[in-house]
């Protein structure tokens, strides 16, 4: 038991700034109530004031608990994407009771950080260009965001950015787990962030990946529904602190859950279009369950990637049925993107957070707007309203452009 406990990786800190709230409880309340964080969003003058349904965060907050980690003035001066990393990462560390600036010296603790961000440079250049800057014409080789934030927070261990499109922050969790199991670090800040941007909105719109419904923005994100027509972009940042269970128990800190298993694969099919063959996506799910030493029947809830695209949702439903076999008929499945929108690089981390909330509250969040389930997406859906049900084990799928597939298995630490 001792060695098993020391090799288990648990989540001891959570920080988030999302369209559904800025704390574990606030986001939990929104998910439980089936509340949408989506509204009309003006894409700006360069986009000719094109109006999109989007999940926007009005103001990125810096929780007061983080005072010792980052001065408010420094936070206020930071760019929006920096704020989406600094705020949640600092909050997660404070929540875990870790201050790297102190602990690394006094306790010889090694803290690492892995951030999932798909196109950081593009966002930096764009934000500068919108303010008449010239960075994109004469780019300089500055340290990337994760290194700047690591320096601000006093993180002394390795720092890196990973990208796998919409699965980016899930890869951060998966790789952070290995940093801990192999002993490279004692604690690891993992997660991801993304911002709404004119270029991304225009590019996804022109790709016909975004919903074009123009009636009610809160009805636009409708995963698994027969009338789905694309996803709704969102923004936000979600970060966690991972630790080995033994260390967390020694510190008597709150344990939100265990990151029990990870599985990864690639479709190797197309740079954009999801693969209709479920073999590789279901392989990621199967590998995650094997990594967690669990069988399909052990899973109580699946948080689907389902973004609301016609091809992607049906492909995922097939992958779930393929991986879970007969057990799929009994496992609750929902897509929280119906409420949060698609947080792109931060999506997988947000959905891991939704799983932790489901575990803590024994509650299955709903897929809102699921009025008419598509028969090609046949699963045990939870339409419109959350339901109460025991939740010990969850699986969270994330699939990205370029065919990156990822599944995280999160379970209660008890």
């Amino acid at each position, binding site marked *: 038991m001792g060695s098993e406990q020391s090799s288990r990786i648990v989540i001891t800190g959570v920080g988030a700034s999302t369209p559904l709230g800025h704390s574990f409880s606030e986001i939990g309340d929104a998910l439980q109530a089936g509340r949408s964080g989506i509204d009309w969003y003006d894409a700006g003058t360069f*986009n000719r004031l094109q109006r999109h349904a989007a999940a926007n965060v009005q103001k990125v907050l810096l929780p007061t608990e983080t005072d010792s980690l980052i001065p408010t003035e420094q936070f206020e001066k930071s760019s929006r994407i920096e704020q989406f990393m600094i705020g949640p990462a600092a909050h997660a560390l404070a929540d875990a009771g870790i201050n790297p600036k102190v602990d690394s010296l006094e306790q010889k603790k090694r803290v690492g950080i892995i951030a999932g961000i798909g196109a950081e440079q593009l966002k930096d250049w764009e934000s500068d260009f919108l303010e008449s800057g010239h960075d994109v014409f004469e780019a300089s080789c500055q340290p990337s965001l994760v290194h700047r934030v690591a320096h601000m927070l006093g993180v002394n261990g390795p720092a890196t950015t990973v990208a796998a499109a919409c699965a980016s922050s899930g890869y951060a969790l998966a790789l952070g787990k*290995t940093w801990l199991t*192999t002993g490279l670090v004692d604690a690891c800040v993992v997660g991801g962030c993304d911002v709404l941007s004119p270029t991304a909105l225009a590019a996804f719109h022109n790709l016909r990946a975004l919903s074009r419904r123009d009636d009610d923005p809160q009805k636009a994100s409708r995963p698994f529904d027969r009338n789905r027509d694309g996803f709704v972009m969102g923004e936000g940042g979600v970060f966690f602190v991972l630790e080995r269970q033994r*260390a967390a128990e*020694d510190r008597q800190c709150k344990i939100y859950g265990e990151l029990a298993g990870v599985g990864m694969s690639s479709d190797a099919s197309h740079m954009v279009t999801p693969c209709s063959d479920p073999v590789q996506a279901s392989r990621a799910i199967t590998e995650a369950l094997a990594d967690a030493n669990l069988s399909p029947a052990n899973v109580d809830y699946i948080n689907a990637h389902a973004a609301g695209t016609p091809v992607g949702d049906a492909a995922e439903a097939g992958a779930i049925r393929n991986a879970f076999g007969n057990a799929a008929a009994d496992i609750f499945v929902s897509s929280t993107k119906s409420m949060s929108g698609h947080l792109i690089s931060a999506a997988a981390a947000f959905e891991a957070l939704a799983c932790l909330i489901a575990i803590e509250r024994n509650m299955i969040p709903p897929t809102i707007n699921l009025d008419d389930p598509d028969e090609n997406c046949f699963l045990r859906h939870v339409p419109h309203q959350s339901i109460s049900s025991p939740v010990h084990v969850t699986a969270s799928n994330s699939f*990205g452009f370029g*065919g990156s597939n990822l599944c995280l298995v999160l379970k209660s630490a008890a």
Partner: protein
Amino acid sequence: MNHSLSSSADLSALCLVESYATASAHSSEIDALAREKHSHGCHSLPPRFLRHADEQTVIGMYSIIQAMADGTQDSRDIRNDAVIAATCLGGQQSAARTMIGLRDKGPVAVTPHIVPQCSLHSVASAASVGFGMHGPNFGVGGGPHAPAEGFLLALTLAPMLAKTSPSSRIWLVCTGWDQQPCLDPEGILTNDPICRGMTFVLKPEMARPVDNTHPHIQVSSVKNTPSPHTLPAHGRLKELCEQFEKGNCTTITMTDTCAIEISALSSNRLSSRTNELILQKEAA
């Protein structure tokens, strides 16, 4: 509450280097390179696969072909291999053109290709899709620390891959510019910088001790690193390639305590290839 924390053992993963190759080309040569047939043995890219690709993707794919061509990878099954791409400031020219179009003509001018072709994971995805690799694929870095982060994450992925797919390899592709492109306000290139790519084919090796005469990479403690050839984590890809070409054992310092050790690549148990279009051109 007791917030004391404890340390534990060092990372023990290690990867053997099966193949190593570099490639480089001037920016002005990349378009022609993208139109070339990229193939070796049974591995080849679909026709016109790179027509929308970023410059770093083109040179990265070319370095992969060079690594395939060294003789060890000819007929090996790569279907379950993983690919990690460490790129530095990729997509700059496409980004500039896209933003100028957005400003002047509005959202209709934004190409959808900017998303899949100019993101941090683009090189990894192109390799996975192009060559049919079904192992994990992801991008890493984005800034000057990219090659160092690429080596670290290859060693991070190694134990995971060894567990799920023991015969698989990791293709680590590092790309970057020797000097960053300079563009005029219309997005036209005003210099002709060199774009560089480097590919390592790595075999996860979990059993210790290993044969030290075989080229390998591993995480080590800074105080134990024997190499006089130490580079900082933000060292340029060009400098790293130069160390490897000289056959030096090289150390990259990641943090105050952690380093990546890359043994000499000149061993006769490893064949490596360098294909510098620039040199070929000068010789011609």
